């Protein structure tokens, strides 16, 4: 397959993975926790590298998922010791990220894993970073990781759809009828961590937050139904990735940065023009009411 096709495929896969995960983050008001996790997975990846001495994607996924869930646990611990939630998030993620950066600059100097790369991603290298898994032909590593994570995410969503829905909507009621709210919370955090790692190579730690939150937020402005919101969010994620790529090659700028920017532009458009929930549509319908 052509070089460009691979980039588009990988970008779109990242868009879908992030888009569907992000919907739950928005509904559960966990956007900033996801932001925190997207930073701390860096530490997970560095530790996985230091322990295993390899850049094997599998170890990275495990390390990142572990640190991601650990981040959520730490935040929860501090919060329950009486610290307000935003401060708990702030303390935990900056510390773990700082340790990650220090370790990276001390020990991982010669590796492909450098800080800039981790932050901004480098989707242009993706088509050349090939690995061979089992009977499959040699394929880009990012493609394999994203596909794996997408399958895991979809399985989780299909299996736990009811639980995810009710714990997002009304956690107290969910707890009352015996849904393991905390477990679902940590499963979701695990999903976020894995999605982040898998998207890391392509978009980097901070821009993955844009891909997680923006499509879901735009979709939220378009519909009230969870299943439709999931689909729209995935589609918008793909759209942003593709438009972002072409824009970046046209302007000759960072592809991941451009994808994040396009995500923001799409959100801005819906913020103003979404039917029913957009600012201008609301204003317009009010004016019509006044006239009649």
């Amino acid at each position, binding site marked *: 397959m052509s070089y460009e096709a691979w980039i588009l495929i990988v970008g779109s896969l990242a868009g879908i993975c992030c888009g569907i995960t992000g919907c739950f983050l928005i509904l559960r008001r966990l*956007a900033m926790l996801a932001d925190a996790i997207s930073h701390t997975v860096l530490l997970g990846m560095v530790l996985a590298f230091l322990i295993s001495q390899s850049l094997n994607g599998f170890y990275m996924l495990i390390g990142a998922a572990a640190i991601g869930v650990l981040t959520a646990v730490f935040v929860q611990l501090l919060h329950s010791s009486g610290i307000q939630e935003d401060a708990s998030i702030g303390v935990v993620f900056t510390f773990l990220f700082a340790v990650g950066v220090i370790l990276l600059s001390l020990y991982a100097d010669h590796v492909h894993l450098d800080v800039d790369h981790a932050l901004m991603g480098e989707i242009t290298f993706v088509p050349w970073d090939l690995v061979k898994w089992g009977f499959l032909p040699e394929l880009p590593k990012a493609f394999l990781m994203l596909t794996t994570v997408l399958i895991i995410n979809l399985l989780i969503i299909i299996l736990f759809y009811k639980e995810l829905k009710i714990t997002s909507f009304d956690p107290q009621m969910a707890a009352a009828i015996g849904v393991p709210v905390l477990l679902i919370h940590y499963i979701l955090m695990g999903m976020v961590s894995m999605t982040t790692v898998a998207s890391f190579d392509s978009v980097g730690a901070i821009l993955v937050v844009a891909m997680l939150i923006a499509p879901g937020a735009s979709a939220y402005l378009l519909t009230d139904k969870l299943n439709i919101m999931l689909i729209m969010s995935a589609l918008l994620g793909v759209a942003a990735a593709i438009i972002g790529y072409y824009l970046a090659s046209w302007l000759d700028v960072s592809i991941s940065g451009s994808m994040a920017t396009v995500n*923001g532009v799409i959100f801005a458009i819906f913020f103003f023009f979404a039917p029913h929930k957009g600012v201008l549509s609301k204003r317009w319908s009010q004016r019509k009411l006044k006239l009649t």
Partner: protein
Amino acid sequence: MDDVIKISLADANTQWVLLGTILLGISSGVLGSIALLRKQSLIGDAVAHASLPGICVTFLLLGEKSLFPLLIGAAISGLLATFCIQAISSYSIIKEDTAIGLVLSVFFGLGIVLLTKVSQSSVGNKSGLNDFIFGQAAALVGSDVKLMAGAAALLTVITWLLFKELKVLTFDPEFAKGLGLPTKLLNFVFLTLLVSAIVVGIQAVGVILMAAMLITPAISARYWTDSLARMIVLSGVFGAISGVFGTIFSTFGTGLATGPFIVVTATFIFFISLLFAPERGLLTKWVKRLRLNKRLQHELVLRKEGKSYQ
């Protein structure tokens, strides 16, 4: 090791850098405490990230790395970010935390796009701008530090002057309105102060970790006192200490960014506070409870013995 510290501290440039990080620590500690109590810490995080496009645009316009205009550019895009967050969370169904995450990442993404443009431009001294991402206090020169010291001092003085008004606005905004304070104006003034403290601080800590300078010293200070004035002072002190030690640690290796070390120091202070603060520290509380239990048991035993003698 001692020698290393001595040598590096004797260096005139290092002294400047240390002075700079002390002042940055103070101003972000002071404004961070108020932001923390107003539950606006994460807005500070967003502002820090969002300053990147402002920095890049200014650089592209001017074509050189001169600190003052860069800070102005950073402040403008930071304020714009807070404006976007407020607009999104008040004019749509999107909640504030989502709005913060969205604005933070999109602005940062735009910043990265612009950064690639900067590195392509022929005048581009890209490494200079990269320092904004993780903070490189060592890159500061005397004139930069003077500017930042002035800004940090000004911010602290304004906060001190408006202390009473900011306090009542933070504690009970409804009542502040009832008192006839111009709460909208005060809100704006505070946000401007906060944004200024952030853009001044990112030189040392970097845009990504700036949130720590706003949150960690403040939350640590909260453990030691129940008075807002003392909390603010302590937070400034903690910020200054983190700045100094972080800067010193980062000079041990070549090319190490200052930000992560400052953050680790601040978090260390936080752990000490979390565990050992009188009254509120977890360990202190635990020991106290243990002692109380022992005393109660002891009294119970004595009473029993007294009874048996009767």
